[in-house]
Every structure is written in C-alpha cells, then in structure tokens.
C-alpha cells in the first residue's frame, strides 16, 4: 500500500524526486547514544558542528517518530535485544548509521562482551569509522546517507530486502568477509 505499489513511469518520476528530497531533508535521529561516540554525536548536534542545517537537530526520544538510528557506541550482549527492539519499533522508512568502529565491527573490543558489529543485529546503511569519529566524520556519513536516499530506489531501500529485517532466530552470520549484495548503490560525492 502507499508508495510500495507505485509503478515507475515518467509520470511518477518527479513525484519520486520530491518524496526523496523531502525524506532526506528532515531525517530525524532517534537517541541511541551508548558510549563515547554519543558524546561526539551530541557535539555534532551542538553549536560548532550544527546538525540543524540538515534538519536533524531534533533527536526524537520515541522511536516511532524517528527515521534514523545512529548506533553510537559499543553494543554489549545485554544491550543487543534492546537495540533490536528499538529498531523494530521504528516506522519505515528507516535508516541506520553505524557510528564508530565499535558499532561497525566490534572495534578494539574483540571479546566475549561486545557484539562484533551491529550489522549482526540490524541492517546498516552507512558505516562511519573512527574512535570516536569526529563530528565532521559523522556529518560526512549523514551526507552519504542523503546521497543514498537521493540515488536509491524509493520502494526497495536495500536490494533483496522487503523490509522484514534480519531473522533473529536464525544462526548468527559467520564472521569473515561477506561479499556485499549485488546491485548495491554506487554513491557519488555528497553535494
């Protein structure tokens, strides 16, 4: 229903552009600051590195009202189900930025307590490396996300996925190099 049933043709072209522009101009993040990266995320929202110019200064407390989940910090085994629950509570369209190396891959903590990469739990759109990443790096990640929204398909945000997400009951994905899904979006320089 809604935009999913849109048949792409020349009539709907500019409508799609309008919708994508609207979506990327006011991505509202959900508060999911966990550790040190959360401080840099707050600094990115504050005065010197203003996120308000991207329409993102309102960090929504309720996941229902949020579009973007910036997983900022290390995800421990106890926090992983909470993370998944908050992600499930968010309404489509939703995106995930994995901020920092701990969220992207476990970072320097390769041990029993930390989930080795938040992409084992939620699908991630943009990875921002750094320990912690500069607010400028986070803004670059956000602009990359804006490019992804601008260039991507409106109805199918991740190739091969209908929005159902990852099956938690299944065996965890094996660690190692995972080939990126074919048909990934090629990103240009953020403008």
């Amino acid at each position, binding site marked *: 229903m809604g935009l999913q049933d849109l048949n792409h043709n020349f009539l709907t072209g500019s409508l799609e552009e309008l919708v994508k522009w609207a979506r990327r101009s006011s991505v509202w993040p959900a*508060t*999911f*600051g*966990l*550790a*040190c990266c*959360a*401080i*840099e995320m*707050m*600094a990115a929202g*504050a*005065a*010197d590195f203003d996120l308000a110019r991207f329409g993102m200064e309102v*960090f929504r*407390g309720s996941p229902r009202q949020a579009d973007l989940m910036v997983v900022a*910090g*290390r995800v*421990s*085994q*106890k*926090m992983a189900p*909470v993370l998944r629950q*908050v992600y499930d509570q968010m309404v489509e369209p939703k995106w995930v930025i994995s901020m920092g190396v701990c969220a992207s891959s476990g970072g*320097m*903590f390769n*041990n*029993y*307590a*930390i989930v080795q990469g938040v992409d084992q739990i939620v699908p991630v759109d943009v990875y921002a490396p750094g*320990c*912690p990443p*500069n607010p400028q790096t986070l803004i670059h990640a956000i602009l990359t996300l804006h490019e992804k929204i601008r260039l991507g398909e409106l109805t199918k945000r991740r190739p091969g996925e209908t929005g159902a997400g990852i099956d938690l009951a299944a065996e965890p994905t094996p660690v190692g190099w995972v080939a990126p899904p074919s048909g990934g979006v090629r990103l240009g320089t953020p403008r």
Partner: protein
Amino acid sequence: MTDEELVAETSEGLQELQDLDETSPEELAIEQGTSLRLAEGLVLDPGDMDVEFGADETMIINMGPQHPSTHGVLRIMLELEGETVLRSKPIIGYLHTGMEKTGEQLTYVQGATNVTRMDYLSPLHNELVYALATEALLGIEVPRRATWIRMLMTELNRISSHVMWMATNGMDLASTSMMIYGFRDREMVLSFFEKTTGLRMNHDYIRPGGVAADLPDGWEDDVMAIVETIPGRVDEYDEMLTGQPIFKQRTEGVGLISPELAVAMSATGPILRASGVAWDLRRSMPYLAYDEVDFDVIVGTVGDTYDRYAVRLNEIRESCKIVRQCVEKMPRGDYRTQDKKVTPPPRARIDESMEALIHHFKIFTRGFEVPAGEVYVAIESPRGELGCYMVADGSNKPYRMHIRGPSFVNLQSLPPLLRGGLIADAIAVISSVDPVMGEVDR
C-alpha cells in the same frame, strides 16, 4: 554450585522489582534505601518515611535503558504511586565491555588505550591512574615537567567534563540553551586537546613513564585563552541558572543525602562534598603536584541537587585557577622518563642507532616487563575517587587490572535519593549524580 543451579538462580526475575508481598525484607530494605548500618543511633527507621502506600496501589515501571534522560544506558525500575517514586532499583550492565579482561591481554604500553574509554568524559584521568599504578609497580620517577603537564591536562579535562555535565544537566532540566553553550565551551578545550594529543577524545596521551608528546609551541596562549574565557561564561551560566526560580524550585530540596549516608554508601566526589564532607583526594591525599598549587575544596551544606550543581560549577572556577598556576609554574625538562626500557627513543635516533631501533621495536611489540607486586592508586576524577588496583606478575601484561569506577559506586546511592520524589525529580537527581556508564559497566 552447578551451572544449572547457577542459571536457575540468575534467570530472569531476580533483577527486577517484584511486588511488595513477594519481596524479602532485605531486598525491600535496599530498594527503599533504608537498609543502612549507620553509626549507633542513626539507623533510619522505615516508619520515619512519610510516604506510606498500600501494595495494590503502586505500579512498577521501567525507565531506560534507551531513554533521553538517563545518562547513557542506565535502566531504573521504579515503583510509582501516581508520580511519586517509592522504591527504585538501578540495573546496569548494558555497556559491559569486558575492559578488565581486555586489560589482561594488552601490554602496559597499550593499556592506556583500553582504560581511556572507560570514563569517556574524562579520559585523561583514567590514563593517569593507570600510568600511576604502573609507575608505582615499576618504581620509576617521572620528571617534574611530565607531572605538571599531566596536572594541566587533567585539570583541563575536569573543566571540560564539568562543563559537559552542566550542558546535559541543563538539557535534562529543559534548558536547551545551556546544552548549546556548554558544548561551545567544551569545543575550546577539545581543540586544545586535539592540538596537543592528536585526538578530541580518548587520547592515548598519559602513558607509563610520562606523556606521549611535549606541549606544542604557543600552548600558553591557547590555554590562557581558555582560562580567560571560561570563567566569564561560567558567570553567565550562574546568572542564567542559579538565580532562576524555576531551576531553583526543581533542584532545591530534591534528592537529599546526609553525610553519614553518603559515607556509608561509599559515595565520593561532588555527591560527598555537596553533603558537607570536605573530602577531595587532591587535598587530602595529594598526588602529582597538587600540594604545590593553591585551590579551594568546594563543600556544600544541604546535600541536595542544587548543592551538587553549585559544587560542580565552582569546581570549574577552581580548576581554572589551577590551570593558571600550571601555566605560570610549568617547569622545563623532559616530558617523559629517560629510562630506556620504558620509554621509546626519539624517532630521529632510530635512523642512527641500532640500539634505539631495537628498543623501539621491543617496546612497541612486546612492551616492558613490570616486576611482581600489587598496588592500589586513587585519584580524584570529576565523578569521585577513581582507583586502579593492579597486580603484576613480572610479565609484560598486567595480571589483573581492576578500575574502581566512581560512578559504579555512586549509583548505589540512587534508591535513597529517589525515594519520595516525583519522576521529574528522578531525572534531575540522576543527572546530578552524573553517572558515566562506561566506567559503571567497564
């Protein structure tokens, strides 16, 4: 105890708040915050509490771990009667990183990178306590300039941590402008840190043997710019918040803790000082060069949220005083010890001397060995007493590295602080306790 029994005992249900009838008297006493063996005659009687409600009228709800107002991932189970908080139970562990186990796998040279991420608002303090413990076990002396540089950097870190606290505290009490102002000032300190250490946060700067690099040229101007702007701005925040009736009504009389209770709960830092106990490790058990600088220990009177705010506000001013003295009195000399087994040689010498190359290689791959022994070193971090208990066994890695996180211990004071208040007061109180979950969960 077999694993099955262990699992059965620790399975879901015992970490939560249960109904009043199902709770044993001991658990009830902790959750009410009244089970304290104080000095004779000061035992709190649950009958003295003025909030009495029946078991069937209360509601147990959960706050966190994902919540805009808990500082980090803290989960608190609250028993509410209407909006009044009766019992509470902080549940932690959502950021447990296994840092103490990781510390046993990293060499002493690498250890500072691990420890610095515990209390991520004052990372230099973590590195300092780790370096002090390692140097105590090694038995080496650090040059005077290194000591004063460490003091300068940690006091600047205290300024940035307290300013950050004022920002988040302001935001929790709905003063968004305080949040923006606070981060603006923090950026000044962080850009100086970036100039000196290379990173804005989690610098790996204070290492066993001294500091990683000397202060850059022109540092006096940068630091004086900081200490000349920040006190003026702190006066503005003082006027903006302290004199404001709404702020005062939200914080005065809220979250009271008596000095005996604070000591019994092992609370240290601004919580202890706000309730009237003049205990500051920098003055009572000086480390680094704190006995050579002049500063005051800020002590509150009542022990409520307002006093904790006032203590931290004035500590910013005192830290600015100390930083000024550091700039004036900074000695010349080496910024790290000359002991070749501990300190890597200067980079230029590696091209010339084979021995320098070998030392560099050994220190950065294998690290140095520390003779067997154990030591407990404590410093005053912005949150309280930050301690490091280190056991060395003669190898190049610590055998046991335990960090006594002040927030971990201060969180025990939450049930007595929250009892009898409203939920909005709960948020103000949690913010005034200033927990940093990185060091709570480690």
